[in-house]
């Protein structure tokens, strides 16, 4: 049977090299794909068919047929068909002697062998054989070339170890083509097997002086790439490199040299003095924009631009300015990036380019606009903020900006600029950032800012990131409300506008708005209407807003009852009933916070309702309100005004307060003193003072002292006045009160105090006095604690508080140097100053700088090891990406790293004398 088939097969085989295939050739495949391109289903079917053909053909014994199948598979890979199953067939094709098949094999291998360890073990022999072709001479140059290209695409550590010696020999090959390919292949070997770099460093860098330019170029490339990992070992080469830079006229090489010097200059600042003049000269002489761009890049990223070097900075910026006004959008884009980097070095450099940046903000390309947005930080001042913000705002409104397009075929086209969502989000955040920058220093007019905020609410409500944007805007509204007292009316109008806005679906903004409504409820005349409105809208609020809403309506109610227009009891009753009904619905909320707050508030309101009803029955002729309404509820909230406090103040106080030194054990009162107080208190009780009288007395005091709201303190004070024995206590109280007067930040204390008051008032029946005394004791203790803790920080806090108040009064908020301002103030100023700079967004550069710095002051060997470590790490990271030999990746990592671990510890110890010889031994052994 064989005899019959043989001749036919033989003829076919002989014809194949001419492209005469009886099987499907690549051309047929491509044509077939194009023919089936109409419907995806038929294409899929066709491709599946072809793939099965390929599977058959690849098993064939005929090498030409096999390589043809492999080529087709490589093509089909682009349609998403994995070809790694054919790796062994590819290997066979690679090992064939003919150039044509070899090329196909290496091409497929470079596409498919993703460091598959099994296949690579088999490949070592093949590669070594291919690399030794040179012995026979002739056309083998290119066969070696193909093999070398292969090496660079799929070398592993083991493979690298095996072939590094072969490669080194080839560095001195007579053919520049092979030398060049070898240099490039060595790069990959160095990456995989860093130890070899140390051993072959000198031989390798000699190639910088090769007579062939391609070889020099490749060597520069490789050194440039390696210097990204570890620049310090290449610093010794800088004279040679500089020489090349001065003499060479090939722009490609110049750019790579500049890249290389950028890396080197990061670790060796001394290079700057030599390089900078040369680079500036280069900028003058070159006509290629990419060289120009790279020169500026080199100056900026290579840290050659010092903060006071205005000459060079201006030169660079002038150049960038040219780029920015050019027609080429790419130039505009990249110069935006460089502008940003220069601005980061010293914001003053970019200040004068505000017009240019404003111009870029309106670029036809949104991605350039987006980059220009990042530059705004540097150029914004109070004079141009309005202009900038209105420019930005317009981009929301005039969405369909139309530009006249390309003149191809002499026809103009109008293309609407599509403003993507991301960009809009960036716009909103940028506007807020610009306005709130440096404590609102740039805002000329807060009325204007209010309208901006309303606009922002409108535009943000249909962006996808509205949750975050909403709370950002809310924070702004709260800040303005809090810090600009003169315009609270305006801000309140803003809030109510937002609240009543139709189609408002920016629910997160409401949280802060509702809080403001409550806190500044005194500004509202018809609180009942507002309460009703809030209750009506409440079902749409999110949980966080509801949490804030509950105290807010209580505040509103309190202010409304005691407002200038005297409310009559029936209408109060209606509002009360509404509120109680509303809160009852919340008592079963799934959020605990809402549950708790609603129950608390509704209980208070129910008591108020009782009080109102009693008042109605008792003296319906008198229009007065029950005390609970006119004194107690406002007393909850209105003790003092909230003031803005610098972020972090609380923590600073805790740190500086030296709480540990406070004596927590010794009681403040001795047993006798305590019993005396108790006795005095009972006397007062027995004095026949009615509760209401006593309270009003207390309230009178409370009003006169305005800042002090502490019935217990008063009680104690009264007691002390009644009995001279308690002078000490009185003194203590007095002292504490003084402190309190000067420092109005006593939230906990205040609320405790008021609770004590309500307790007093509400429990009309038997009053458990001993319990109350307990309370007093506990309270006193805690008070003294806070008082002591506060003392040290008080001065600073006051400084800040005063500043804030003054700022608020002056409306324009700016850092105000005051006589009593302390170090804290300076800190704030420093903070502000540093804020003025453009924010550091990219961290990658920083980190790389740190790395190089570390290597800076070490021995070369040490640094080299560092580099190796780094590379090893990288390698392992890359390997873990692949599906490696061991099934469990974690384990794999653990197992392979054995050497690496040793190195790690070595690095920590910083003594590697012992280990290095070991390693070189292993190298030699292998």
């Amino acid at each position, binding site marked *: 049977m064989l005899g019959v088939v043989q001749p036919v097969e033989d003829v076919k085989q*002989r014809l194949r*090299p*001419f492209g005469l295939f009886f099987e499907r050739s*690549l051309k047929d495949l*491509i044509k077939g794909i194009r023919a089936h391109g109409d419907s995806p289903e038929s294409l899929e079917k066709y491709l599946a068919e072809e793939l099965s053909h390929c599977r058959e053909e690849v098993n064939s014994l005929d090498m030409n047929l096999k390589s043809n199948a492999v*080529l087709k598979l*490589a093509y089909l890979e*682009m349609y*998403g068909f*994995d070809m790694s199953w054919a790796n062994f067939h590819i290997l066979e094709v690679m090992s064939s002697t*003919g*150039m*044509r*098949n070899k*090329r196909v094999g290496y*091409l497929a291998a*470079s*596409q498919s062998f993703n460091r598959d360890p099994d296949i690579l073990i088999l490949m070592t022999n093949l590669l070594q054989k291919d690399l030794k072709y040179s012995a026979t001479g002739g*056309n083998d140059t*290119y066969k070696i070339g*193909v093999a070398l*290209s292969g090496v*660079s*695409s799929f070398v592993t550590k083991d493979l690298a170890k095996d072939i590094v010696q072969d490669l080194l020999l080839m560095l001195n090959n007579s053919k520049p*083509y092979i030398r*060049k390919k070898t240099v490039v*292949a060595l*790069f990959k070997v160095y*990456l995989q097997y860093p130890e070899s770099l140390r051993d072959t460093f000198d031989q390798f860098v000699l190639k910088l002086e090769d007579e062939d330019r*391609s070889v020099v*170029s*490749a060597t520069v*490339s490789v050194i*440039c*790439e390696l210097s*990204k990992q570890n620049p310090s070992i290449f610093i010794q080469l800088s004279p040679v490199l500089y020489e090349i830079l001065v003499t060479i006229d090939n722009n*490609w090489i110049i*750019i790579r040299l500049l*890249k*290389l010097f950028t890396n080197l200059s990061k670790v060796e600042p001394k290079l700057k003095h030599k390089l900078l003049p040369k680079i500036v000269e280069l900028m003058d002489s070159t006509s290629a*924009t*990419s060289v120009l*761009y*790279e020169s500026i*890049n080199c100056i900026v990223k290579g840290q050659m631009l010092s903060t006071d070097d205005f000459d060079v900075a201006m030169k660079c910026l002038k150049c960038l300015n040219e780029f920015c006004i050019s027609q080429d*959008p*790419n130039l505009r*884009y*990249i110069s935006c990036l460089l502008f940003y980097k220069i601005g980061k070095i010293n914001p003053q450099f970019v200040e004068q380019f505000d017009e240019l940046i404003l111009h870029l903000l309106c670029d*036809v*390309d949104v*991605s*350039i606009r987006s980059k220009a947005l990042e530059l705004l930080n540097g150029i914004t001042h109070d004079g141009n903020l309005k202009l900038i913000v209105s420019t930005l705002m317009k981009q929301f409104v005039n969405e369909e900006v139309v*530009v006249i*397009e390309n003149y191809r075929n002499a026809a103009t086209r109008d293309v609407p*600029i599509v403003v993507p969502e991301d960009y809009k989000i960036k716009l909103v955040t940028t506007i807020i950032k610009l306005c709130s920058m440096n404590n609102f220093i740039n805002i000329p007019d807060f009325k204007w800012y209010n309208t901006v905020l309303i606009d922002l609410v409108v535009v943000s409500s249909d962006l996808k990131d509205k949750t975050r944007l909403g709370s950002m805007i809310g924070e702004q509204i709260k800040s303005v409300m809090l810090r600009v007292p003169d315009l609270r009316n305006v801000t309140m109008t803003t809030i109510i506008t937002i609240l009543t806005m139709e189609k408002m679906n920016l629910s997160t903004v409401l949280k802060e708005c509702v809080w403001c409504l409550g806190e500044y409820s005194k500004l509202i005349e018809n609180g009942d209407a507002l309460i009703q409105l809030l209750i009506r809208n409440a079902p749409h609020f999110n949980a966080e807003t509801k949490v804030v809403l509950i105290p807010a309506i209580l505040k509103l109610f309190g202010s409304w009852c005691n407002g200038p227009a005297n409310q009559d009891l029936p209408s109060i009753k209606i509002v009360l009933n509404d509120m109680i009904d509303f809160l009852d619905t919340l008592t079963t909320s799934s959020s605990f916070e809402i549950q708790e707050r609603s129950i608390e508030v509704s209980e208070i309101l129910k008591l108020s309702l009782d009080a109102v009803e009693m008042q109605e029955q008792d003296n319906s002729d008198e229009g007065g309100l029950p005390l609970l309404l006119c004194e107690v509820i406002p007393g909850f909230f209105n003790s003092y005004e909230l003031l803005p406090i610098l972020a972090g103040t609380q923590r600073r106080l805790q740190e500086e307060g030296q709480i540990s030194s406070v004596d927590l054990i010794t009681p403040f009162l001795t047993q006798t003193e305590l019993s005396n107080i108790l006795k005095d208190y009972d006397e007062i009780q027995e004095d026949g003072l009615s509760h209401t009288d006593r309270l009003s007395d207390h309230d009178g005091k409370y009003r006169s002292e305005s800042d002090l709201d502490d019935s217990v303190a008063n009680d104690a004070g009264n007691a002390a006045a009644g009995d001279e024995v308690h002078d000490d206590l009185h003194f203590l109280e007095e002292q504490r009160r003084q402190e309190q007067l000067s420092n109005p930040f006593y939230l906990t204390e205040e609320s405790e105090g008021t609770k004590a008051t309500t307790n007093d008032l509400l429990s009309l029946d038997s009053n458990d006095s001993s319990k109350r005394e307990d309370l007093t004791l506990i309270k006193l203790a805690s008070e003294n604690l806070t008082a002591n803790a506060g003392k040290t920080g008080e001065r600073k806090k006051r400084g800040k508080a005063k500043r804030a108040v003054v700022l608020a009064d002056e409306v324009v908020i700016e850092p105000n140097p005051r006589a009593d301002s302390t170090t804290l103030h300076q800190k704030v100023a420093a903070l502000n100053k540093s804020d003025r700079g453009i924010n550091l967004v*990219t961290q*990658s550069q920083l980190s790389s700088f740190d790395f190089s710095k570390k290597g800076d002051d070490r021995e070369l060997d040490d640094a080299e090891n560092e580099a190796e470590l780094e590379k090893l790490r990288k390698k392992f990271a890359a390997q873990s*990406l*692949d599906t490696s030999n061991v099934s469990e990746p974690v384990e794999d990592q653990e197992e392979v790293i054995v050497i690496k671990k040793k190195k790690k510890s070595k690095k920590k110890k910083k003594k590697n004398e012992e280990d290095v010889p070991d390693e070189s031994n292993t190298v030699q052994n292998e």
Partner: protein
Amino acid sequence: MSHIKYLLLVSRQGKVRLMKWYQPLTEKAKTKIINDLTPLILGRKPKMCNILDYSDHKVIYRRYASLYFIIGITPNVDNELLCLDLVHRYVETMDVYFGNVCELDIIFNFAKAYDILNEMVMCDGSLAESSKKEVLYAVQTMDGMDDNDKLEKVLS
């Protein structure tokens, strides 16, 4: 110097004509990149710049007739302009090799297109040879060897 992550050739219809990955990526990641980038880049308007940010790196692209050349590069390391020049150099070289190159040339001779690319860009996507002449000479010599192989085969 450029440090290319990948190079893709995509037709205006969104078909991949050539792809070369210089970093080991999973099939899934590759497909994601292609599926993400294709509509993004095909949707760009003529006057827009050729550089865009995509996930953690930058992408530059250039359109030649119906083909988009897309390159993923490392931000802060690569020179965007140089990469654009590189693409241009690649196209120029192919233009000489094929003689007024068009999309069909690349489709039917994708192995040659890869060869030219491999001569120019090697290793981890770093540029190896910037000289058009050198690249062409190397590729053409290899082609000549190919033909010799064929001849030998037939004569054997």
